[in-house]
């Protein structure tokens, strides 16, 4: 499988071509370069996947782990060296398929979405860079290569969030995303260093002897690595960057902040899974608790947001929480004995990537049509945008967990794993799954049903015009906000929606996912736990019915009433329970004031003054010594004679 090197080489080549060829390239050419190279990558990924999963299993019934490429990059000692290479194992091959598929869809979609946008070529260059980094991350042969690509992913995310660099919010959001994830990556790096220091290796599969050396520190190393993963995967309380990251172009949100990059943390935990199970089961359960809280928190916040991309962002956080919980509730490597969560998590990662990308791309179409992210500008769009409507509905049903859509199967596996761990966890997750169904259908009804705000009264359009005047035309607003009927997006945008919708419909029951990915590598037959499945379907249907009752009508009396009655709670949830304010308080008031300000004072008054003193002292010494060098031979000879006399006297005396 030596051709896998092209999976990495093609995106980086297209990045270099697009980035270095100047910005004068016609848009069609630039887009074609990016999209075609990505299409080739997708084809290669599929060939790899078919070849890999189709290969004969070893005698133990495992899929062989192969490293078609590997070279030593930085050797430190005999066993401790940083390698760069490509490793193929079930989850990395699965991720290759996910990333290349979603990335290709986003590339195609962006043709329509970013049409005529300034910086079109830059956009495609960054997309290629991101795809390269993400692919490099998943095929990493060792933890350090993963870290290198991890940071590259962070940089490309930063660049793409700040794509509209004339917009202050986008700049702030990109900086926030970068700093928060960087802060978390500090934990990851320390974890890697502990791992490397004690084990003398960076590989994912250390030998028994190396594991013995690490002993008690392994849980710490793994826990710190999880901090990095929590930062990238937006786990509470490091989730604050993800909702703001929605300032980037919508296809970017679909690719990076929904489908691929944010699941890197889940992927990391899955990568280290055997070590977690073997040496740090408590740490793994903490992963579950954090994931559970995050899922719940994000679900509550998602219920009240008014910006559609923010709703989707919080739903992403919640769903990643599901994946983390699924990994965290595992107690052994055997999928029949409590290792089911691993498979469930990877399965959910796969299906979630597809339907969440679909949701974001659908939201992109809606934003494209109404030129706003706010729900209050939407409503009744189903008449105008039939394709978007149907595909969005499919994705909503999938995320809500309604059979036969893919989300049902993966979510059901997660719930089963939770119930096996403890019934409490199972019930909590079931309730959160119900909340998911509720807020997704709230979103769906607010966009596509309800009052038609578009053929609306005069004052409505007037209000929108005022809004347009208040907002300088930047970023996603391509033409002005002038009142026009929303329309379906061009084919280049709806085609990816249809493809992703098709995947969402079939992915759950056509693909024998457990055969490919399972915690111990053996083929595992997915079988539905009927009790869990029935419960979750009932909860989901009830939640959808409540959402229908509350939001489907022209007016929303129940929702308004609840909002009035629980105005404080609503406000708190709308403000994301003041987590951003809390972080600001911690950073500005505590860290800046109590640590940074004294440090700055110390720096300015002690360090700088010491340096100034050194400079002043040198200067003064020079001033003092300067007259000696008068240029007068007579003075020099006088000194010379003095020296000689002293030396002679010394010689005579001694």
């Amino acid at each position, binding site marked *: 499988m030596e051709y896998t090197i092209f999976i990495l080489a093609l995106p980086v080549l297209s990045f270099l071509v697009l980035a270095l060829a100047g910005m004068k390239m016609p848009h069609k050419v630039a887009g074609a370069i990016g999209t075609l190279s990505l299409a080739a990558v997708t084809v290669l990924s599929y060939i790899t996947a078919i070849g890999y999963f189709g290969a004969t299993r070893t005698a133990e019934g495992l899929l062989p782990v192969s490293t078609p490429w590997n070279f030593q990059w930085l050797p430190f000692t005999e066993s401790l060296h940083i390698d760069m290479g490509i490793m193929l194992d079930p989850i990395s091959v699965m991720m290759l398929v996910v990333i290349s598929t979603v990335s290709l869809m986003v590339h195609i979609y962006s043709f329509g979405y970013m049409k005529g946008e300034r910086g079109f070529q830059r956009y495609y260059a960054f997309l290629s860079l991101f795809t390269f980094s993400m692919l490099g991350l998943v095929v990493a042969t060792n933890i350090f290569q993963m870290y290198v690509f991890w940071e590259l992913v962070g940089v490309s995310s930063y660049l793409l969030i700040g794509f509209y660099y004339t917009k202050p919010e986008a700049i702030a959001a990109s900086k926030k995303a970068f700093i928060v994830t960087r802060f978390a990556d500090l934990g990851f790096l320390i974890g890697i260093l502990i791992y490397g220091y004690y084990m003398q290796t960076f590989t994912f599969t250390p030998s028994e002897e190396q594991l013995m050396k690490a002993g008690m520190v392994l849980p710490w190393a793994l826990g710190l690595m999880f901090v990095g993963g929590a930062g990238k995967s937006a786990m509470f309380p490091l989730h604050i960057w993800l909702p703001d990251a929605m300032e980037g172009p919508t296809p970017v949100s679909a690719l990076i902040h929904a489908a691929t990059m944010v699941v890197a943390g889940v992927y990391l935990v899955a990568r280290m899974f055997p070590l977690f199970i073997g040496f740090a089961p408590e740490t793994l359960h903490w992963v579950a608790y954090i994931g559970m809280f995050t899922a719940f928190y994000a679900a509550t916040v998602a219920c009240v947001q008014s910006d559609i991309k923010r709703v989707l962002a919080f739903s992403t956080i919640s769903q990643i929480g599901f994946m983390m919980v699924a990994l965290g509730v595992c107690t052994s490597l055997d999928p029949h004995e409590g290792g089911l969560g691993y498979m469930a998590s990877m399965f959910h990662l796969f299906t979630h990537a597809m339907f969440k990308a679909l949701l974001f791309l659908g939201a992109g179409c809606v934003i494209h049509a109404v030129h706003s992210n706010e729900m209050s500008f939407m409503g009744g769009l189903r008449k105008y945008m039939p394709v978007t409507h149907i595909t969005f509905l499919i994705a909503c049903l999938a995320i809500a967990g309604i059979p036969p859509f893919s989300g049902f199967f993966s979510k059901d596996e997660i719930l089963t794993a939770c119930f096996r761990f403890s019934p409490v966890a199972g019930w909590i997750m079931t309730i959160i799954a119900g909340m998911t169904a509720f807020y997704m259908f709230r979103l769906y009804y607010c966009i596509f049903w309800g009052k038609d705000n578009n053929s609306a009264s005069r004052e409505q359009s007037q209000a929108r015009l005022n809004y347009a005047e208040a907002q300088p035309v930047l970023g996603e607003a391509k033409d002005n906000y002038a009142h026009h009927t929303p329309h379906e997006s061009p084919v280049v945008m709806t085609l990816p929606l249809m493809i992703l919708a098709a995947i969402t419909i079939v992915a759950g029951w056509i693909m024998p996912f457990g055969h490919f990915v399972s915690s111990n590598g053996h083929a595992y037959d997915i079988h539905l736990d009927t009790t869990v499945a029935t419960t979750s379907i009932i909860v989901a249907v009830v939640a959808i019915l409540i959402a229908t009752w509350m939001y489907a009508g022209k007016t929303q009396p129940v929702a308004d009433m609840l909002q009035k009655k629980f105005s404080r709670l609503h406000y708190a949830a709308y403000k994301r329970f003041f987590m951003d304010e809390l972080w600001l308080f911690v950073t500005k008031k505590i860290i800046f004031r109590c640590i940074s300000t004294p440090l700055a004072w110390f720096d300015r008054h002690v360090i700088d003054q010491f340096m100034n003193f050194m400079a002043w002292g040198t200067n003064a010494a020079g001033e003092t010594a300067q007259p000696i060098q008068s*240029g*007068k*031979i*007579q003075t020099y*000879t*006088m000194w010379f*004679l003095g020296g000689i006399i002293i030396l002679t006297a010394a010689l005579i005396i001694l």
Partner: protein
Amino acid sequence: MEIEVHVLHYLVISTVMLFCGIYGFFTRKNLLALLISAELMLNATNINFAVFNRYLFPGQLEGHFFSLFGIAIAAAETAVAIAIIINVYRNINKILTDDISEMKG
């Protein structure tokens, strides 16, 4: 009464000459006086060479040769130095060391 000329006498003479030269070199400002002082120091060493050769190694001639070399070099040096001094005087019309500072950086 005849005084025997001892090596010490020569050395006293040469030391006096050397220190006269050094004193002159330090204190005089006139370039010509400096030159004369340098000649005094040189000649003090020449005397030493001749004396040591005459009294310590009578059968050899190195000391004499060295004094001859010293005289020849002193002559050449004087010629060059006087040429420089004359040129300095012609150009800037000064001959005292304190006044000659045009070339100083």
